[in-house]
C-alpha cells in the first residue's frame, strides 16, 4: 500500500502576469509519506502549495485526489477534502484567543456555548506541541513568533486531515521545538496521513522526509528517495554550486565605532542581569531555544521593550532603552523576526521598502528627488541579491525568501549605523541566499560596526558567530569564542538534560 498515491498534480501551470511561477509541474504524494518540496527562493514551492489548497487557481493542469480528477477552487474546499496546511506567512489573528484561532476556519463552530466543550481538546493540542504552558483563552497577539508558528502547526494537525502541508514550518523554531514537530509528524504519518514539507533546512529534510521533489524556476528537476542523498547532493540539485567567497578582511580599528557593552540587562522580569559585550568587527551570536530570551534582548536593544533596564554603552556613549527613536539615534538598526508585522510594508513596492529607513539620508533639505530614490533602491537590490527588474513590483509579490533579502537590504549600508541587530537573519532563505546574506553580514561587520544576531538554527550560530552567547530561560548561561566551543556543547547549554528526556518520551 505504500506506493498508493493520495494526491497527484499533473502539468500545473501558473503565471502571475509576466512571472511564470509554475511551468508544467507534476508531483505525486503517497499515503503515509513525508514528501519534501525543495528549491531556491522563488522556485515555485509556495505557489504549488497554494494551487493544491485552492488559495490560487491554476491556469492549466489537473489535480487528482485518490485518483479522481478534481478542481479545488477555495481553501474551504481543500479543507473539506482533507487537506490542511500551514502557510509560509503566519495567518493567525492576533486579537483573537488561542482557542478561537484554532476553531477558526475549522469545521467546528465557534459559538460561545461550544467553546467550553472544545477547551480540553485545545489543551491537548497545545500540550502535544509543547505549548502546554499557554492558556486557551490567551490572546494570540501576546505570543512570540515561534509560539505562533507552533500553534499554526498544531492547528493543522488537529484538523484530522488526510494530507497536511507545511510551508516552512520551522523557520523560527529551534532544534528543540523542531523535535516536537517531528514527533507530531511521525505520529500522524503512522496513521496514514501524508505530509508535504517545504523547508530550506536540509538537515531536517534528511531527518524526517521519505522522498523529495526538487524544483527550479517553476519546474520539477527530479523526485528522489531521500535515503540515497546527503546534504551536498541536495544543495547540488537545488542550486548547483554554492558561491565561494573570499575571506572578509576586517578593517575594524581598536576602539572602533561598534564597540558595545551591555550590563545588567533585565527585561519584563524575565531576562535577568544579562551582561556581555564585543568589539566592533566581531559578530556576536545569541543561541537559545524558543522563549529563551535571545529575541527579547535584541528587541530591548532596539527600544521595543518598554519594561527593560540596564546599562548599554555603544561606541563610548550610553543610551537609555525603551524608545525606538533613542536606539536609532544611538545608531542601532534592527531586523525583526516578524517580517510581516514589524518589517515590510507589504503592499508597497520593493523600492519604497528599501528606502523606507533612509529617507532622511537621501534627502537634501528634506526634499527627495525621484532619481536619487531610484538609484539607491537599485544599488540595494543588487546588494540584497534580488533581481533589479522587480524594483517597482510590490514586495508581497516576491517569494518569502526574497522578501527577507529585501528586509535585510533595507538595513545595510547606513552611514550612521553602529550596531546591527538581526533576529533570524536568514528566515526562509535558500542555501545560496543564506550564504550571500552571511557574506553581507560579515562585510557589514568588517566595516567596524557591532553585530548581534539571534538564530534558532544551531548551524547558523556556529557558521556566522565570532562569539557565541547561550541563553536559557532568561539567563545568559555561557559566552565563548567560537573556536572554543562546538555545536553539541552549545546545544546542551541551550537545552537542559531533563528537557531533552521530555521530548524523546
Amino acid at each position, binding site marked *: 500500500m505504500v506506493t498508493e498515491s493520495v494526491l497527484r498534480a499533473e502539468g500545473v501551470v501558473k503565471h502571475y502576469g509576466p512571472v511564470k511561477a509554475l511551468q508544467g509541474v507534476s508531483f505525486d504524494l503517497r499515503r503515509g509519506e513525508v514528501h519534501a518540496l525543495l528549491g531556491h527562493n522563488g522556485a515555485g514551492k509556495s505557489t504549488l502549495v497554494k494551487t493544491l489548497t485552492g488559495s490560487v487557481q491554476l491556469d492549466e493542469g489537473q489535480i487528482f485526489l485518490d485518483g479522481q480528477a478534481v478542481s479545488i477552487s477555495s481553501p474551504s474546499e481543500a479543507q473539506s477534502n482533507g487537506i490542511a496546511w500551514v502557510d509560509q506567512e503566519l495567518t493567525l489573528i492576533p486579537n483573537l484567543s488561542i482557542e478561537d484561532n484554532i476553531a477558526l476556519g475549522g469545521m467546528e463552530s465557534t459559538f460561545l456555548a461550544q467553546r467550553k466543550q472544545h477547551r480540553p481538546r485545545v489543551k491537548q493540542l497545545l500540550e502535544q506541541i509543547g505549548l502546554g504552558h499557554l492558556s486557551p483563552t490567551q490572546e494570540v497577539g501576546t505570543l512570540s513568533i515561534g509560539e505562533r508558528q507552533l500553534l499554526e502547526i498544531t492547528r493543522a494537525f488537529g484538523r484530522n486531515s488526510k494530507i497536511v502541508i507545511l510551508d516552512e514550518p520551522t523557520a523560527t523554531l529551534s532544534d528543540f521545538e523542531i523535535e516536537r514537530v517531528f514527533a507530531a509528524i511521525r505520529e500522524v504519518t503512522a496513521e496514514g496521513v501524508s505530509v508535504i514539507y517545504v523547508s530550506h533546512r536540509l538537515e531536517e529534510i534528511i531527518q524526517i522526509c521519505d522522498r523529495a521533489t526538487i524544483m527550479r524556476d517553476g519546474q520539477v528537476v527530479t523526485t528522489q528517495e531521500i535515503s540515497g542523498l546527503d546534504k551536498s547532493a541536495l544543495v547540488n540539485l537545488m542550486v548547483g554550486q554554492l558561491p565561494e567567497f573570499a575571506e572578509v578582511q576586517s578593517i575594524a580599528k581598536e576602539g572602533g565605532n561598534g564597540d558595545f557593552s551591555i550590563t545588567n540587562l533585565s527585561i519584563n522580569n524575565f531576562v535577568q542581569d544579562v551582561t556581555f559585550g564585543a568589539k566592533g568587527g566581531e559578530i556576536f551570536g545569541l543561541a537559545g531555544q524558543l522563549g529563551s530570551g535571545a529575541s527579547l534582548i535584541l528587541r530591548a536593544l532596539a527600544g521595543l521593550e518598554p519594561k527593560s533596564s540596564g546599562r548599554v554603552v555603544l561606541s563610548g556613549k550610553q543610551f537609555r532603552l525603551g524608545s525606538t527613536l533613542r536606539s536609532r539615534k544611538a545608531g542601532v538598526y534592527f531586523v525583526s523576526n516578524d517580517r510581516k508585522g514589524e518589517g515590510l510594508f507589504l503592499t*508597497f513596492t520593493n523600492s519604497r521598502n528599501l528606502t523606507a529607513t533612509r*529617507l532622511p539620508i537621501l534627502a537634501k533639505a528634506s526634499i527627495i528627488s525621484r532619481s536619487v530614490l531610484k538609484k539607491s533602491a537599485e544599488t540595494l537590490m543588487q546588494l540584497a541579491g534580488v533581481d533589479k527588474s522587480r524594483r517597482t513590483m510590490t514586495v508581497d509579490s516576491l517569494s518569502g525568501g526574497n522578501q527577507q533579502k529585501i528586509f535585510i537590504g533595507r538595513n545595510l549600508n547606513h552611514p550612521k549605523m553602529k550596531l546591527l541587530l538581526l533576529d533570524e537573519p536568514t528566515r526562509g532563505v535558500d542555501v545560496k541566499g543564506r550564504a550571500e546574506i552571511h557574506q553581507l553580514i560579515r562585510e557589514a561587520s568588517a566595516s567596524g560596526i557591532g553585530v548581534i544576531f539571534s538564530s534558532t538554527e544551531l548551524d547558523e550560530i556556529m557558521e556566522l558567530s565570532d562569539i557565541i552567547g547561550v541563553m536559557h530561560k532568561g539567563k545568559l548561561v555561557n559566552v565563548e569564542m567560537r573556536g572554543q566551543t562546538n555545536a553539541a556543547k552549545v546545544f546542551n547549554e541551550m537545552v537542559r538534560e531533563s528537557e531533552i528526556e521530555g521530548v524523546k518520551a
Partner: protein
Amino acid sequence: MTVITPTAESSTSIASFVRKISLVQIAAVAVAAVLIIFGAITNNFFSLSTFQGILNTSGIIAIVAIGVTFMTLSGNLFTLSASVTVLVLGQAFLEIVHFGPFPAILIILLLGAIIFGLQGWLVGRLGANVIIISVAAGFLQQGVAEYLSGSNPSILAPAGVTSYLWMRNTYGGILFSVWAMFGVVILGELFLRRTVAGRQIYLVGENRAAARTAGINVKRITIIAFVAAGICIAFAATLEAAYTQNAYSQGSYTFDAIVAILIGGTSVLGGKGSLIRTMFGALVVSYLSQMMVMRGYNTPTRVFVEGLLLFGVVVVMQLNDRGRS
C-alpha cells in the same frame, strides 16, 4: 469541490478575464454609468455652465476633503468636526479681516494648525481614539466660539471692508476657491511625494509597527498629518467666509469630505490613496448635487443619495478587501 471529468476544459479565456476584473472596477463603471445617464436625462445638464457650476461648488469641499485625506493616509481615519472648524475659523476670519486679508489668513491658518496639531498630539502621543478626540474637539470649538460671540451666533462680514473680496471673485469663469483647490492639490502632492515627512506619512499609514521598528518617529508624523489637515481646513474656512460673507451655519463638510475620500478610493486603513483621488471624489460629490439640484430635489434628498452612494462604496471596498486577503 466539484469532481469534473478529465475532458472538461475548466478555464476558458473569458472566464479568466472575468476573474481578473475586480469588484471595484465593476462598481466604478456602474456608478459612472448611472451618473452619466442621469446627467443625460436631465435638461441642459451637459452644458458649459453646468460644468462651471460643478467646479465652482467643489472647490471648498475639495480643500476640506484634501485636508482630511492627510489624516486618512497616515492611518487616522477621519475627523468628525471639520464642519465646526470651518464655521468657527470662518467667524474668526470675518472678525479679523479688517487687519488685511493676508495677515488674517495667516492667523487663521496658524489657528487651524494649532487646533488640529493638538488633536494630533493627543492621538499620536497618548494613543487616544481619533473619532472621540475629534468629536470632543468639535464641542470645545463650538463652546469657545459661542462664548466669544455672545448671544449672536451669526457673524456677518464687516461693513466697508473690501480688501479681501478678491477671494470670492471668479477668474475665467472659475471661482477663486477652485483655483485655490488646484494650488492645494499641487502643493500637497509635492509635500507627500517629495519630502521626508510626506513619504513617512504613507509608511506610518501602511504599517505602523513596521514604521516604528524602522526608526520613524510615528508620533511626530501623526502630528504633522493632523497639522496639514488643520491648515487645509482653515484655508477652506477663510474661502467659505469670504464667499458667503457670513458664518452662521455649519455646512455638511464633515460628511462631504468623508464621501469624497471614499469615492476617490483612498484606503480607510491608511497608506494608500492620494490627494488627487480625493479631488476627483469631491468633483463626483459636486456633480451629484448639481444634478439633483437641477432635477429639483431638495437638500435632504441630496444627502440621502450621497449616503446611499457612500454606503455602496463602503460595501464594495469591504468586499474587495476581503477578496484580497
